């Protein structure tokens, strides 16, 4: 366990990794990275490395889970044993069960579930390396994998956290800031519908600070959304070139 640094933000207002308070970590996104999956995507956000794959719409197994009027979305958020400092047991932890649920619920509003009744879509998210904010990056990348699989969607879902370290509201917390900071507010957004599909918080914030944190997170979401669209276009432009 590393020692707590005295200050998470220096006199010049720079954070431990040299970022400004409202600056995102470097992000790299790629769409269509796995050949077996119907849709897939990969994201690197700071040291986070996360892979998502989507299978479906396909038959539901076990059958009794099938829904008569809409399709079933299933999500599995899972961390690789080597993704964190101390080896994580591969068995799903309570945290992973909860995150799988909130990630599913953040993606559900974006999908036209009623288009394929009695089928299932499975979204598998593997965190290969974790550096804080994995649930947010997972939502961003899983939404792209769904789009890559050609699932009819109202909008992409993009996610980013804001929080508070020392006395400052900051964007996109990395691991140390998440653990040592005062508060963490992950938010997911459907940018074109202005709809928040994930909202969690831990730590202590006044109402005013909370309002500022949500607004900052939403701005971060919009910046990542531009990268998301870019990544999606990049894949399909290259597909078109091959066809020609």
């Amino acid at each position: 366990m590393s020692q707590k640094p005295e200050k998470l933000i220096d006199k010049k207002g720079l954070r431990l990794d040299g970022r400004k308070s409202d600056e995102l970590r470097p992000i790299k996104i790629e769409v269509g990275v796995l050949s077996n999956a119907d849709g897939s995507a990969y994201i690197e956000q700071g040291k986070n490395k996360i892979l998502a794959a989507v299978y479906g719409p396909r038959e539901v197994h076990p059958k009794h889970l099938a829904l008569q009027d809409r399709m079933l979305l299933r999500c599995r958020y899972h961390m690789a044993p080597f993704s964190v400092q101390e080896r994580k047991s591969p068995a799903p932890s309570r945290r992973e069960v909860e995150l799988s649920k909130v990630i599913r619920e953040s993606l559900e509003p974006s999908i036209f579930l009623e288009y394929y009744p009695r089928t299932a879509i499975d979204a598998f998210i593997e965190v290969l390396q974790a550096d804080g904010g994995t649930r947010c990056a997972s939502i961003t990348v899983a939404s792209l994998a769904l789009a890559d699989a050609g699932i009819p969607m109202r909008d992409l879902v993009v996610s980013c956290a804001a929080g508070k370290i020392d006395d400052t509201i900051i964007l996109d917390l990395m691991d140390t800031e998440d653990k040592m900071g005062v508060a963490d507010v992950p938010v997911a957004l459907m940018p074109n519908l202005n709809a928040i599909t994930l909202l969690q918080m831990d730590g202590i914030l006044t109402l005013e600070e909370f309002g500022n944190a949500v607004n900052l997170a939403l701005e971060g979401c919009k910046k990542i959304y531009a990268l998301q669209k870019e990544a999606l276009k990049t894949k399909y432009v290259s597909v078109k070139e091959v066809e020609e």
Partner: protein
Amino acid sequence: MSSVVIRVKQKQIAQLIAKGKRLDGRGLTDYREIKVEQGIIERAEGSARVLLGRTEVMVGTKIEIGQPFPDTPNEGVLTVNAELVPLASPTFEPGPPDENSIELARIVDRGVRESKAIDVEKLCIDPGKKVFVVFVDVYVLNHDGNLIDASALAALAALLNTKMSNYEIEEDEVKIKPGYTPLPMRSHPIAITFAKINDKLVVDPWLEEEQVMDARLTMAINDDGDICAIQKGGSGYFTPEQVLEAAKIAKEKSQEIREKLDW
């Protein structure tokens, strides 16, 4: 329930809410009647039963001596577990905890932990070696909606009722002495849950409202009126304006409940 019945019900509930009314006669930001009973299980170190309308939740706390986590050697340990007991609802089944009970436990845990409700440093016996471990077991006995708020209230009531054995250390051994001290508590987080139905927010949704809601939002508020935990649930969404409106209402409601219960 079949989706046809739900759709019919949803229309009825939504039409009423549009007029500022609810099926059970409450206003949009009214809570159901809250009853709290403490110290009902003698074998537990602390216990409480909360009735929120017809929703009934019992919480028992147990205290054991265990090891601290390596990154917090001077702090006692809090463990929250929730059981959706099959006798509480036709939709609950026996078996290992599903995602709903895990989520419930983790929301209750987050409220207590993040508000620093328990002074965990006072639970340390021997730094890095021995600390008190507080087990909070949430037992849902009757499900009529809003299990989160009822469970959070019951957990807090049980913690406020919890007694720790007195002890002394003799030659590295912990010896239990007669007498008890109350668990060191310093904050009273109150969870306020909203349901979004047809684009309107209602607080303390009961079962029929939960069945038709688009999404759910819970905010835990500490004694200072600050937010200490949030969880959105359900497969719908909230607008940014609704989130901020909810935060304001949650602050008012938590003060109201705190006054009513004298916490």
